[in-house]
């Protein structure tokens, strides 16, 4: 098994996305967090994923509630 620090952005991206759908194991979380410390690009990706999660939550809440379909 490769050292956590040796993971590529591609690997870490996959883990960040899986983190949306399952609880990552602690070695996986460690891999992600260590990578985020040394990578300039992946923290930006993680923020994008967070924004998408919150956006979907808003959209779902607005669509399900009340009599209006307005996303506001």
């Amino acid at each position, binding site marked *: 098994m490769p050292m956590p620090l040796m993971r590529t952005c591609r*690997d870490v991206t996959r883990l960040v996305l899986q983190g949306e759908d*399952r609880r990552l194991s602690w070695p996986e979380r460690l891999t992600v967090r260590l990578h985020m410390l040394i990578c300039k690009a992946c923290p930006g990706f993680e923020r994008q994923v967070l924004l998408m999660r919150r956006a979907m939550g808003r959209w779902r809440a607005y669509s399900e509630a009340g*009599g209006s379909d307005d996303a506001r």
Partner: protein
Amino acid sequence: MPATDAMNDFAHDVQSLRDALLRFARHQLRNDEWAEDAVSETLLAALEKPQSFGGRSQLKTWLVGILKHKVVDQLRRHAREATVLGRDDDEDLDEQLFAADGHWRDAPADWGDPEHHFRQRQFFEVLEACVTHLPATQGRVFMMREWLELDADEICKTLSISSTNLWVLLHRARLRLRDCLQGRWFGAARPA
């Protein structure tokens, strides 16, 4: 008779929400026929059990709650067809995003303050369009996760797919959604 009037009002209100429910079902099922069936079953269930309905202001929420179960029923019933992969489903964005050494070709852009975007109605229209443009099977599993709020095991059981398949589909759906939002909203020129 007053009771009959109340019943008629109720039937009318339920019927008036049909379009909203249909749109909801189409997003999740990506098949007009299944969506019609899910909505019809929902309306029937509602009209047969009006006593389980709490208050009029909650009508849509109550109906959506019933619809979610009917949507899952449809997905289970049509599991085989619902998981057929189209050419689009197979396309792998990873190759476009990452160089051979696993580094980003282009670093992900800064999307800024989420709340700034969430205040704009057009943002949600773009989000809806991007979800609608996901390949059908990706769109179904993505919506099962995000709107039906099913966990991975429940999705795999409902659709009779392996968890490996599910991870691939969700991975591709999320990358594609990101790509679409980047192109149509965050990277698009628009009035400030």
